[in-house]
């Protein structure tokens, strides 16, 4: 699997550290309550198909990326920096 880093270009998967589903970006308010925080921290959609997850370009530019890919085929559709992702 190769990931197209918007800053460095397409690189081997081994340069990246996988963090998990991109839902981690939707951080609840501190006082949102235990159920909301449980859902944020632990519960996952876990889709078989298209998904967005977070990767850290650890051995490259150090950027955090939102990568869109297919969990069944391993096809990678694209990657955005957090700035690009939030700008959309």
């Amino acid at each position, binding site marked *: 699997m190769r990931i197209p880093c918007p800053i460095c270009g397409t690189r081997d998967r081994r340069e990246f550290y996988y963090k998990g589903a991109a839902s981690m970006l939707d951080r609840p308010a501190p006082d949102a309550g235990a159920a909301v925080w449980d859902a944020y921290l632990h*519960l996952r959609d876990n889709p078989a198909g298209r998904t967005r997850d977070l990767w850290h370009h650890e051995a490259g530019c150090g950027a955090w990326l939102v990568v869109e890919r297919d969990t069944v085929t391993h096809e990678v559709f694209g990657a955005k920096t957090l700035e690009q992702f939030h700008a959309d």
Partner: protein
Amino acid sequence: MRFSGWRIFREGLTGNKGWGPHWRDPAPKSEYDIVIIGGGGHGLSTAYYLAKEHGLTNVAVLEKGYLGGGNVGRNTTIVRANYFLPGNSEFYSHSLKLWEGLEADLNYNVMHSQRGLINLFHSDGQRDAFVRRGNAMINQGDDAILLDRDGVRKHLPYLDFDNTRFPIYGGLLHPRGGTARHDAVAWGYARGADRRGVDLIQNCEVTGIDIQNGRVTGVQTTRGAIRAKKVGIVVAGRSGQVAAMAGMRLPIESHILQAFVSEGLKPCIDHVVSFGMGHFYISQSDKGGLVFGGDLDFYASYAARGNLPMTEHVMEAAMTLMPMIGKARVLRSWGGIMDMTPDGSPIIDKTGVDGLYLDCGWCYGGFKAVPGSGFAFAHLIAQDRPHDSAARYRLDRFRTGVGLMDEEGTGAQHNLH
């Protein structure tokens, strides 16, 4: 049909023409007391113990493919009870005891081989951790022997003892650990459940779960609707999707774990050996193939195949630990889909829906748990309360933070397991 020495002798003299199918192939009935979704090792053992321990035989196991065609037919077959934390410790201890009586219980040769398992350690800190683990195992009533470097050399002379980066300080030997023939485990449980009246229904995919007023009433399948008073979900790797049919989200990400088999060789590895520093473990199958693997690929995937980086990592670890393996050719590899929970431990619990039960989250260690998981899940479904051995496998432990079982000590977080 029962297996016996006499029967094998007679069949041998008469051309082996008397052997029949090991289980029936029934059409689904319109209603059962209990429906188990998933005909893998855990689902089949659940059905077996529902019938044997609780006398519940109006039971169907629904399998979307063929029995034992999932992870139970594709794993590294290791059986052990070397867990440390309360919750896991008593569960795997109980499961190992069931393993030890399994062949007599099932009248089926599952080739359970207690060849001994050795976890190597490579530093003073690791040795201390293994001493502690060994004591926990002994306190639980299981066995553990601390080996020093010479002790390991006696058992495993083929390792690279001159490695300066990962020097072998010793190992923790678990003599009752070993392997079993994974397919035979599924077949033995299937036959045992079938003989007690359980319907094993293959090529029957569940497409919906029927819920009325907060209570489960049945399932929709590719072979029609089936009503049921109770439904158990045991679908490792697909737990997220099946639970979603009941409106639930689970604390699970599905990841790929790869494993490899070499060509058949003469016997050379007598034990199960694990190399913690390089994330590598190996044993030799009874057919002679070296069976080995390493870490997860470490990202969510349903591809049922791995990627090259982890393959290379495993091969490098293998060559580091035992250079002789470089002479063996890899015959095949596969990637199994694992339910990964944030703390790396499983879940056997009721859900928020009455009559709907969940057995999932076995991470990369489901095979050794097959007897214990089925036993505990059958108890939960039949009695509506957890079996003592699995009382801590609660679904809400992540929300409450109480009873987390982070066996690796890496933190209760999805991407760390």
